């Protein structure tokens, strides 16, 4: 029944999806945290930059960002991100695009988490003479991170699904393989079911486990 799978590297394609997700997740967590720090900070120019970045990037389709990394950055500007062969270049470009896009959502999730920390915490931190960076680093962010595990999980799951957009620039991940397979093979329903199942396996346990972790970690108030 599943002999149509022969000749196709199904696991390899999903492994690329996982790699895209993991690398972009780490990248956007770092960049998103920096952006959130800028957005709540005391320096007006940085606040403005953070706000502008989030508002612009959130409103551009991810597809445009990803296609732009290939057509614009790579083919027009000859940016290769240190890779030499075609597939490695596109993979890195896709990670770059996904990171740039997802970090806007990480920033917003974090900022809403910072808002859940009671005012008294920040006031107390300021009262004992901590500076802004100390307040943020030692008092606010540790509590904020605990309460945003849930929202960040949603961002991670959306990122997992968004990696399929990388197929638009020829990264050989799951959606790319599926497109090829349904065009060449007859079993449309069966192939689609296999890929749908693959994504459910990737997203459902992540959501359940991390949401459970989030409930455990959240500061009870």
């Amino acid at each position, binding site marked *: 029944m599943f002999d149509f799978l022969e000749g196709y590297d199904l696991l390899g394609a999903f492994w690329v999806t996982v790699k895209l997700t993991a690398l972009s997740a780490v990248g956007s967590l770092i960049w998103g945290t920096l952006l959130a720090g800028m957005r709540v900070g005391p320096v007006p120019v940085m606040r403005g930059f953070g706000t502008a970045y989030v*508002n612009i990037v959130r409103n551009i389709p991810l597809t445009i960002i990803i296609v732009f990394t290939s057509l614009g950055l790579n083919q027009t500007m000859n940016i290769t991100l240190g890779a030499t062969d075609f597939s490695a270049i596109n993979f890195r470009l896709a990670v770059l695009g996904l990171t740039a896009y997802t970090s806007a959502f990480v920033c917003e999730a974090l900022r809403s988490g910072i808002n859940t920390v009671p005012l008294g915490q920040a006031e107390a931190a*300021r009262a004992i003479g901590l500076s802004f960076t100390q307040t943020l680093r030692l008092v606010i962010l540790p509590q904020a991170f605990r309460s945003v595990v849930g929202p960040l999980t949603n961002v991670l799951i959306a990122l997992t699904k968004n990696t399929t957009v990388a197929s638009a620039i020829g990264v050989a991940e799951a959606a790319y393989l599926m497109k090829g397979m349904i065009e060449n093979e007859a079993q449309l329903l069966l192939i689609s079911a296999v890929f749908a199942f693959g994504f459910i396996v990737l997203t459902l346990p992540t959501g359940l486990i991390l949401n459970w972790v989030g409930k455990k970690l959240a500061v009870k108030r």
Partner: protein
Amino acid sequence: MTSVLFDTPGPRAKRRNLLYTLLFVVVFAAVAWWVFKALDDKNQLDWVKWKPFFTDSRAWSTYIWPGLENTLKAAAFAMVIALPLGAFFGIARLSDHLSVRLPSSVVIEFFRAIPVLLLMLFANEAYAKFTNVSTEDRPLYAVVTGLVLYNASVLAEVVRAGILALPKGQSEAAYAIGLRKGQTMRSILLPQSVTAMLPAIVSQLVVIVKDTALGGAMLTFSELLASVRPLSAAYGANTIACFTIVACIFVAINFALTTFASWLEKRLRRAKKSTGAVLPAAAVAGSQSAGAEF
């Protein structure tokens, strides 16, 4: 919020902030200069490459407007079909009968867990294999089908959350005056929850508009993003200029929608007449158990 995390700056803090501002501006200017230089080296800033958008009306009438029209058409179709479907599944998930609740829960969770691109690819191939939709209509059909399947399940959750956000007294009062379950839903709960979930619905429209671009990249659907290639072919490899213009259009539309959504939310919160239950615009992403899309 801004003043909670830090004290009102005194003389030293003001000096420090000024230093940070200067540092940031210098770094930002350096990056901007580097980008400018790189663009200039590749001749992407030549006026010739940008001129068509300002002087040649054909760039707009031949490429951009038709693309934008298709983008908006697909988004409108998807929203109009997904909304009643989502309302149906959302209400079904609130049913007292397990035999109704369970299947609708499964359908909602299934379509929310799958990337919308997979749904579009599937729909495209299914239309090609099992129906006789013409080749030029097929991309639109596939894009709308994919968007409907995904967004109906997201909107179902919005509807469910909107109804659950109403005070319990509303349905209790309705039962007390002898309304049936169906009547309560139809004439008491739904009308009130529609206003409560308007902000969330409008911000879901942003997601739909953004996702139409997938059709352009993967299914030869001739929407706004797909107009970049013929544009840059016609006006001499001005890829960067084309992307800038197209991105600006998307940002303008979506920023207007986002602003409208938060305006609605504020207005509804202020309104005294309603029950005060408002589903925030961000509820679409926030209320989800397994899948969220932005």
